[in-house]
Structure formats: C-alpha cells, structure tokens
C-alpha cells in the first residue's frame, strides 16, 4: 500500500494548458498516474497529450469521475481554483502553486476544515507513491518503491534524502511534500498519522526546517499516538535569528522556531535527528536492520 495517491487516483489538473501545468501533467501521466482530465476556462474540448480539457472543474469531475485535483494555477487565481476544488467534492487537493497570500490561504483553510477533504500544499512539490502514481513536480527517477514514508516541508531536500536512501538500497512507500508556507492544508501530524495507519510503511522520515512550531507539535503527537518509528532531519542551523519585529510573535508561539529548538523538542521525545541527509539515511538503515 501507500498513502494519498496510488493506482486508484483519478487526477484532474487545474491549469493544465499553462507551460508548467502541461509539462508536469504530461510527466505525471507518463509515470503511470491516471490523469483523467484537465481544466482551463475557454479551452474546453481541447486536449493535452490525450488528456481531455474542460472549461470547469465541475464538468471535469462529473464526466470523468476524478477524485484528486492538482492546482497549477498562478497565485492570483489559485484561491478561486482551490474553492472550485473544494466545491467539486474531490477527496484530495494538491496545490503546487507558490506565492498565494497568507490571508487568502487562511480563508481557504478555515473553509476546508469544515468538511472532510484533504488539501496538501500550497507551495509544495506534490506526492509520489513510487511505482504507482506521481502527482506534482518531483523528479521521479530519484524514488524507488519501498517501505519508508517520507514527509517534508522542502522539495530539493526531499530529493537529496531519497537519493541517500537509494544509495543504501532503501525505497519509499509514499513521499509527501507538505509545503513551506505559513498556512498549509496538511501538517506533519496529518501525514504522519496516515503513514502510521499504512501497513506497508515501516518507518517515517520527517524533514523539517526553521520557522513555525509544526515540528514541535509533531514531536508531542508522535510520542503519544504513533507506533511506527520516526527519524527526523531539520535544516537551518546556520540561519541567522530572524529579525523580530515587535514582540507579539514571541509571546504567542512559545517556540523559538529555530533548528536547535526543533531538534531538542524531537530528541526529548526519543526521535533521532540526523545532522545531515547522509546521516538520516544511515539512521533509517539502522532502524530497519
């Protein structure tokens, strides 16, 4: 098994006729993902490499039974596309778009949480279940089927760690890029929970970076709820302390948001944190025996 995307994924790509949208939709299709439709207003009836294009997401979902939507729409129009995806009823929305205003995402997020759909991203590289389906922009050659679940806020760092795993002969069940924006649809906790329920994921690698307190929250959650072993990596130890405007931020988070703070929070809950991507892969190897 795997999580979120697999052979049962029926993908519709919003913004499929854009340069990036067309390129990656085609690549996803060639990987074996069942890309059933694309949406670009005004281009209904056309096709992109055999993928039928619809004017509205509503039509695309009605006519193709799509259950997953990928948003490749420029930031100014992405919020509209996200609401369209929420209202279409698809189970999973994956938003690749970078640069969506935080206040807009706050509105989308609050609406989303009143229902049962899952959003991954925005500002993320997507999701791949190696050998089954790839939804997003990840370089598929880096990944091989296996039993390690990988969840990350960073794209290229995900590829780096996957490569280090590959060098040790270790593959992945699913790799999820949750995105680096202040408001993202799925947190580390959400994805780690999914991996924990997956019988084919033996170990979880959680790749974090400076900022926010999601890693700290995940550490607490994992210690109380997760039975699958977790190994972590945090980037940004050399990042200079962000210049703090005012004091309100420091009052509310209670967390420093630094790499050191996150490392300590994870280690306090018995989660090993590698000092570099190579060491993370070695930890995984040791755990798997």
């Amino acid at each position, binding site marked *: 098994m795997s999580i979120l995307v697999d052979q049962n994924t029926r993908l519709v790509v919003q913004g499929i006729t854009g340069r990036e949208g067309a390129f990656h939709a085609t690549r996803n299709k060639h990987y074996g993902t069942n890309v059933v439709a694309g949406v670009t207003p005004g281009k209904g009836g056309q096709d992109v490499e055999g993928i039928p294009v619809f004017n509205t997401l509503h039509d695309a979902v009605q006519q193709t039974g799509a259950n997953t939507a990928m948003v490749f729409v420029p930031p100014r129009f992405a919020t509209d596309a996200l609401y369209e995806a929420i209202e279409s009823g698809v189970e999973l929305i994956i938003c690749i778009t970078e*640069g969506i*205003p*935080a206040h*807009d995402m706050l509105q989308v997020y609050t609406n989303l949480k009143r229902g049962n759909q899952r959003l991954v991203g925005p500002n993320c590289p997507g999701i791949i279940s190696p050998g089954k389906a790839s939804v997003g922009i990840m370089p598929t050659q880096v990944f091989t089927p296996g039993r390690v679940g990988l969840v990350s806020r*960073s794209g290229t760092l995900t590829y780096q760690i996957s490569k280090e795993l590959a060098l040790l002969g270790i593959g992945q069940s699913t790799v999820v890029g949750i995105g*680096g924006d202040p408001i993202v649809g799925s947190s580390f906790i959400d994805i780690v929970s999914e991996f924990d329920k997956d019988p084919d994921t033996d170990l979880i690698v959680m790749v974090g970076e400076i900022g926010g307190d999601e890693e700290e929250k995940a550490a607490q959650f994992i210690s109380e709820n997760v039975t699958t072993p977790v190994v972590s990596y945090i980037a940004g130890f*050399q*990042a200079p302390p962000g210049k703090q405007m005012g004091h309100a931020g420091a009052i*509310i988070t209670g967390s420093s948001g630094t790499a050191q703070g996150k490392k300590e929070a994870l280690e306090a809950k018995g989660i090993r944190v590698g000092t570099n*991507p190579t060491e993370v892969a070695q930890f995984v190897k040791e755990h798997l025996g």
Partner: protein
Amino acid sequence: MVDPNQGHIRSSEWEGKGLDLFEYQGKELFARHGIPVPSGEAAETPAEAKAAAERIGGPVAVKAQVQVGGRGKAGGIKVANTVAEAEAAAEQILGMDIKGHTVHRVWIEAASEIEKEYYASITFDRSNKKPLVMLSAMGGVDIEAVAEEHPEKLARLHVDPLSGFHPHHARRLCYEAGIDDAAMRGVQDILLKLYKGFIELDAMLFEVNPLIVTKSGDVIALDAKVTIDNNALYRHPDILALQEASTSDPQERMAQEKGVTYVKLDGDVGILGNGAGLVMSTLDVVALAGGRPANFLDAGGGSKADEVVAALEVLLSDPKVKSLLINIFGGITRCDEVAEGLLTAIDQLGSTLPIVVRLDGTNEEEGRAIIKERAPKNVVVEPTMLSAAKRAVELAKEAAA
C-alpha cells in the same frame, strides 16, 4: 515550491514573513485607515528636521527610524521643546548606530501629553491559524515581560477568519485588559480599525506600543510596527514601492535588482544551491565541516543558465568570499544548464576563485561532463554534498592562509 509564473523557490520563513515597515511608514498607513496618530514628518538631515519641527509647531519628539526594538533606551528618541532643540536632536540621532542598524532617517512628530500607556497588537498566528488580537493596560514597557510575569494582564482573543472581528470582541478585550472606562470607546474604535486595516493590508503583524491616552482623553497610536505579507504585495503597489531602499548591503542590493534570493552571512565560503531547504542544509553541512558560509543563495526551482550567471555575479562581488560551493539537486533544474551558466559566468567575470561543484539529479552526467571538458582548473567536481562541503572549506582556508 514552484510559482508557475516564475519557477523560483522561496522559503517564506527564511526571507522573513514579510516586508517590515518603518514606524513612519506604518503610521502613514494607520492614518489612512482612520487610526489616530500624532501628526509628523520624516527627515533625513538636521535641516529637514528643523523645517519639519517648524511646520508642526510646539514641542516635538524626534525618533530614530530603525527596525529594531530598544531605540528609546539607546538614545534614539528625544523630546525637543524648540525648533533649535529639534535640529540638535536630529544631528545627534542621524547616523547613530542602534544594535547594528544605522539611523538614516528620523520621524518628527507633535509631542503627546501621555496620561496612560496601553498595548495593542494583531498577529497572524500561523500555529492556531487565526488572527490573534492582544490588548493590555500595561503598555509602554517590555510586553514580553508582562506576558511572562502577569499573563492575566494581557488579554488575548483569536478571531474566526470567516466571521471576523466585531464590536463585542473589542468590548470583551477592553474589559479583560482592565481599560479605563473613559478610554473604552476610543480603544474599541481603534481595535476595530486596526483589524480592518490588518485584513485590508494583508498584514502579518500590527503592533502598537504604546497606545496612549492623552491628558485630554484622546486615544492615539504612538508607535506602529507593521509587517506586510510578501506574497500579497502585488495588490499593494504603494507598499511595494516602499521596499526599494530596505538594504544597504551591496550584495543584497545587487541580488534584489537581479531578482536573486540572497541573504548575507559573515563567513567566507560562498554558497549557491537550488531550493531553500537544500541551501539551508548546505550551510549546515559547511559549518559541520568547520567552515563558515558567506551567504544563503537559492537559485530557484527551474534554474536556467542566465539565472546561474546572475547568482554568481552576486557571489563573486563579495570580497570576503574565498571559495564557492555550488550544490545542485536537479529536479526541474537541469544540471547541464547549471554547468553552462557556471562556464558563462567564469568567462564573463574572469574569476580565479576555487569553485567546488556538486551536481545530482536531472542530466547530472551531462552537467559533470561539461565541467570536466570545458571548465578552467579552478573548478572541481565532487561526488557528494558532504565531500563537496569539506573540499570548499579546505580551499577557503588555504586561500585565507
């Protein structure tokens, strides 16, 4: 991590949550949203300060414009009773160094007769995913200390992003914070206007410390700390225009002009990578190898040859850089494009600095072949991120010796 428009990778966290404004800019925005602020003018020379004090009339406060706290204690705020005193105060404050920030501008405003000092703020609380409004009757002091020692004195309220902030919220905050009855109405009015402005301006932070009550009973924002979301600046062109002169560092300024994501650090190993996470990891690995990174530079998710050239121009213009480490994991970025960009840059800039290159991912073979066959001797290829970092650190130490 890709903006389909641009193909640039960014970490909103690394670049800061947004654009920080100076007090005088924040107050101008406040005024536009109907939030009472003292009348004032910005000045860059003592003569301008004198003229401003004349126009404002009466006693004025001369305030250093720096984006760092504690300027009052550092002598960056002076009250002047006459025009001559205002000029002298500006003379003293302009050019002053406050915690590493040089004062280039002062704000001259009508001095206020302070009866009470409160604290008000609105924060984009990413952890709870709601705006957070805070109010305290203990303003004008270190609010972090108040939060720690007297948490009950700091009233807090999370706002539902969909239904918004209403008068009953403002009343509740005032009662909880113990605001004087006489000031209630003015404080509530300001809280409502602050929230409206916070939403309309796509702010990540509004902080007013102190929010004062004058002897005549008016409630006025005496300070303004404002941060605006970078991603929303496209719909606030007037605020975007304020961004231009925000850095005085030559490399950072050059990077801004060329659209390169760059942050200056204080080491001597120049860094170029793709993707914020990988670049941060590269800095960490350089430090673990005993070196000190000179910068953070994210060449972006779809780095093309000309983008690599622009990035290298920025790096090579820094005289402190003794060696360069180029760490690329090609996804959308193609390693052969990066290699071509590197060769073009070396050709154009004639650099003889030692350059260590590590290329992995899409078209890695082609990229390495280009460097092996055509690059000058100062460019070396290393197979892994760790070995590349180690080599770059060694070369920087040799060059410095």
